[in-house]
Structure formats: C-alpha cells, structure tokens
C-alpha cells in the first residue's frame, strides 16, 4: 500500500508538472537567492505571557541581532487566522503588545500590527474575541487589515506556483522592518507552520479569497516559497513558542507548553529551528527543504545558536500519523 510519502511526492510532482514544466531545474531567479554562509537564531526562555516580562525578553532577543529600528516603521504580522476559545490558534496578544512596546523602546517611529485573517471575514469579532483588540487599544498601536489594504503588483522571482505575480499590501511592502510573528504549530497540510507559512496572511483575501483560496489552489508549499521569495523588505521573525500547538494544527490541535521565544532574521533558519524544537526534521518538511537551497539555511551545521541551547527546550510534539515520518523521535501518546 502506498504511504503518505508516496502521496506527497505525487502531489508535489503533479503540481510541479502542472505549473513549471519538467525542464526547469531551478524555479528561482538569481534575485531570489538570499542564502548566506551562516544564519543566527536565538532561543530565549519565556515561561508565561506576563507582558512586562515579555517586553524584556523581546528586547533581549532583538539585542542579539544587528537590528537598528531607529526612525523606521515596524510592521508586526501575528498569526490571527481564526478563534476558538478552547484553543491556542493565534499568536498571544500579550506577546504582540510586548513586541510593540519593545520596538518602540528600540526607537521605531511607529509600530503597526497587520494581518489578513485567513478564515474569518469578521475582523471585529476576531480582534475582540482573541483579546488582540483590547491590547491594541491599550498600546495605542494601529491595526491594518491586510485583506483590504492598498496593493501593488509584485513580480515573483520564483516559479513554484506559476502564479507569475502577486498583489501585496503596501503596508508590508513599505515596511522599514517586517516582523513575522507566528505561533509554534504543527500544520495538517504542510507539516509545520511558522514564520514562512505565516506570510499567507499578507496575501490579500479580497483578491485571492478566503481561506487564501488561490494559494491553496496553486499549491501550499509552492505558495509559501513564492511569497517568501517575493517579499523583499528587511525582515525579522519572533516565534511564540510559549504555548505551541501539536497534533491537528493549525486550528484544531492541542496546546503544548514549550516556554520559549525564538528569534532570527533568516526565516528558513528560524523555521528549521522551530521544527527541531518540535522534534521534527526540518529537511523532511517539503518547503523548508526547498527553501534551504536558495532562501536561507535549514541545515543545523550552518546555524549559529544564540541564547539557550535548542536541546534544552526541545519538546516532542505529537503530529498527525501521516506526518510521523518527519519526526526525529516517535510522537508521544496524548496524555
């Protein structure tokens, strides 16, 4: 009987044949290449969502990188895709608020919170139910609805989907620093969802549909790669790994405590580290493996670990059985 790996290979092969043709070995242009010799990532302990303490942790994390945000407009992009009062779907509002404060203290002229929710069109509900709306009022930060923001056409530097171009929000394209702030989660299609997959939320649903329909139609992995290669602005990534999500993520999984924040400029390196924190081999994740070839570093030999050791926080996340082959150790049984 064919297994999941065969299935995914066939899916990927079908998508590639449908969109690229078989004669194109490298579906990226030289302009898309951002891979460097080495990439730094930082793991810092953060036991809970106490906002005042998180401001210090985020400042410590930012301080481990050569970031100068003075005079720049920082755009934070949390994961706010859906709301379930029983779940841990979204980047915690206290972390978003703490990050707003941290970048202000670092000298940013403005810190904006921006998201284009993928499932829901009712932003008022999402913001209030999740608690982010109240946090934004407290901090005085502006929220930009990326699903309806003004857009500019961006020609893609890669051809994983064959879409050719995307309309992307001006708030993101004009950012002095764009910060992807995902939740540390498993994902029932892609294996993991972290900094790179979080960029689905910058693609305006008013044009591409809910739930980001054109991207799913064009291929999930290819879309992740095309969007990340297209976004040519200064970037940083902060992963909410205080409480992650295991199992049937990104919506219906269960909370898993890890107690860390993960920082880095290279989204591939950050996501590879996030995968390892969940005991998932990043090079077994299709889009991370491909991204490692041109967009950043997933190979741990090329990563410089700052802050705590990865091993000291590594947690054995449970995954759906079809992703078990990606694990570096067998999933623990649910408690």
């Amino acid at each position: 009987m064919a297994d999941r790996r065969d299935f995914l290979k066939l899916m990927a092969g079908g998508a590639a044949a449908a969109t690229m043709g078989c004669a194109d070995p490298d579906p990226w242009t030289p302009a898309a290449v951002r891979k460097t010799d080495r990439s730094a990532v930082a793991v810092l302990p953060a036991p809970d969502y106490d906002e005042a303490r998180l401001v210090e942790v985020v400042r410590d994390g930012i301080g481990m990188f050569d970031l100068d945000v003075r005079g720049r407009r920082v755009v934070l992009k949390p994961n706010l895709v859906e709301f379930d009062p029983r779940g841990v779907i979204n980047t915690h509002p206290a972390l978003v608020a703490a990050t707003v404060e941290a970048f202000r203290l670092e000298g940013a002229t403005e810190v904006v919170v921006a998201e284009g929710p993928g499932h829901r069109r009712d932003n008022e509900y999402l913001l209030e139910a999740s608690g982010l709306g109240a946090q934004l009022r407290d901090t005085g930060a502006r929220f930009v609805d990326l699903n309806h923001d003004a857009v500019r056409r961006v020609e893609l530097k890669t051809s994983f989907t064959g879409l050719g171009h995307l309309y992307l929000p001006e708030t993101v394209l004009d950012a002095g620093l764009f910060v992807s702030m995902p939740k540390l989660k498993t994902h029932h299609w892609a294996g993991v969802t972290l900094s790179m997959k979080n960029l689905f939320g910058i693609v305006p649903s008013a044009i591409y549909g809910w739930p980001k329909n054109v991207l799913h139609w064009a291929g999930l992995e290819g879309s992740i790669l095309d969007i990340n290669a297209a976004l040519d602005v200064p970037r940083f990534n902060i992963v909410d790994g205080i409480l992650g999500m295991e199992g049937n993520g990104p919506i219906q999984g269960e909370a898993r405590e890890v107690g860390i924040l993960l920082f880095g400029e290279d989204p591939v390196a950050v996501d590879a580290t996030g995968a390892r924190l969940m005991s998932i081999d990043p090079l077994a994740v299709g889009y991370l493996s491909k991204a490692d070839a041109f967009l950043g570093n997933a190979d741990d030999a090329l990563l410089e670990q700052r802050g705590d050791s990865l091993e000291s926080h590594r947690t054995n996340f449970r995954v759906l059985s079809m992703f078990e082959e990606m694990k570096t150790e067998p999933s623990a049984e649910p408690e």
Partner: protein
Amino acid sequence: MAQTLEFRGIMPNLAVSHLIALQGQDGGWGPYPGDPSRTEATALAALALQRAGEPAAGRAFDWLRAAQLDSGAWPIAPVLAEPGWVTSLAVFALSFDEPAGRSATNGARWLLAEEGSGATWWVNLLFRLFPQRKAVELDTDLTGWPWATGTFSWVEPTSYAMIALKRLRGHVRDARLEERLDEGDRLLVDRACVGGGWNYGNPRVLGEELWPYPDTTAAALLALADRGELPPVAAGLGVVPAMLEENESILALSLCGLAFGTHGVDRTGVIERLEGRIEEWSSGEVRALAWAALALDERSDVLGLSNG
C-alpha cells in the same frame, strides 16, 4: 484607518447617516474610511442608501456603472482591472436601481458564465489511489462561484451570486439561470456544518468537524431565502442564536438580523443589540456599516429576497 467622524446629525437609522458622512468625492466608499473607493463597500453602501431612500445613492450607482468592465464584471478595485467576485454585490445593488438595465443584466450574464472549478485531474487521480487522504468531505463536482476565477467554489461568493441572480430572475433570459441556481442551492446544502450553519465552506477537515460562523451562515440563509423547505435552512436559523451569544460584532448582528427578517423569524432581539452597537461603531469597516444600515431598516424583507 482610524479617524474622527463628524456626522450630519442624528437620523432614525444612524448607520445610514454614517454612510452618507463617509461617501467619497467620487461617490464611492473604500473598505475603511478614507480609503480609495472599491466595489464591495460601494455596492453595499449604494444598496443601503437606495433602500433608505437617500439621494446620495445616485452618485454611488454612477460610481458602480463607471467601474464596470467591458466583460460585464466588476474588479475588486478600479486599479486592478480584473473581474472579481464583487460582481455579485454590484449586480445585487443595481437590481434595486435599474434591474432591467444593461449594467445589471450584463453583470448577471458574466456571473452565469463564472464557475468554480473542481479538483484537477491529477488530484482526482491521487484521491482514487489514496482515498484515505481525501481530507475534506465535499462534493467537488458541484459548481458554485469562486472568490477568484479558476478556483474552487465557496459559500460566501456562491451565496452572493445566488442572491444577485435570484433578484434578477425576471430580467435575465438565459437558459443557464435556473440550472445554476439549482446547483448553487445544492452546493450550499452540501457545505452546511454538521450541527447547522455555514463557515467559509468546509464542514469537516480530516474527519473533524469545523464550526459555523454567523456572517457566512447568514449569507447562505439569504441565498436560500426561497428554499425554506431545505433542512439546512431550519438548522442554520436554529444555530444563529447560540453563535450570537459569543459574537456581537456589527457584521454578525447585521447579517443575522437580515437573515431572520428574510425568513420571517423574530429579529427584535438581534436588532436591539445592533442598535446599541452601532452607536459605538468602532470597527471602521464600511461594509459592516452598510449591512447594519440595511438590517436597521424597518422592513423585515428589505433585501427583497423572500419571494425569490
């Protein structure tokens, strides 16, 4: 975009006065106050002002006519110039202004030609080889309307297209009309959540049930206004009160109030809550405000859908 609003004074329907105050120089509205005009917000605001008998609706309909593409469709925004799902809302709005006019009927013909796509051949092949990997339990052969041309059919664009086409039933002579509406009805039945109501269009993923949303439930209920005998209609109406216990957004209250009114369900409680919320309108979404203006209309069937 946050901004201070200066209203023209208290009117019976506060949402209408908000809309009038926000109308752009070009006659349209953007998604948020101060944004460049786009089709969705303008179509809904035009509809709301027309139903309120406000002369400002005229300039809004002019904006819509000027923004229409040669194909009969409307773009999301004039700068994009590609046909979009918002065509349904423009046609629906124009059905109250000039239902037999060229603008509305050309738009309706474009809608009739616009179809959601099913799964591609290789995906169908893969799911035959790996039936256990078919993550969603949908009838992918049913054709409704997509958000973006060439992609899958979903609840909200299908609902809007059906609302527009059902409104224009007497004005568009096209053999495809009834066939497409019938298939749209069946698609909405197929996409209903197990316990009632609709979300964006996936009742189950990987065997686990997903929950319904008030706004998409209401959109589907409006599209099925003439199909009250279908079991998902009663189930959808039945699940709305529980959803509104956890959600009192202006969008949710407005659309659910309209769905209740259209189906003859007592909407008093929903409208009272909406009246309280509209005074503190804070979300800034123009489309939510326009739906609220319609919901606050004293006519329960202000959308004219009850009789198809």
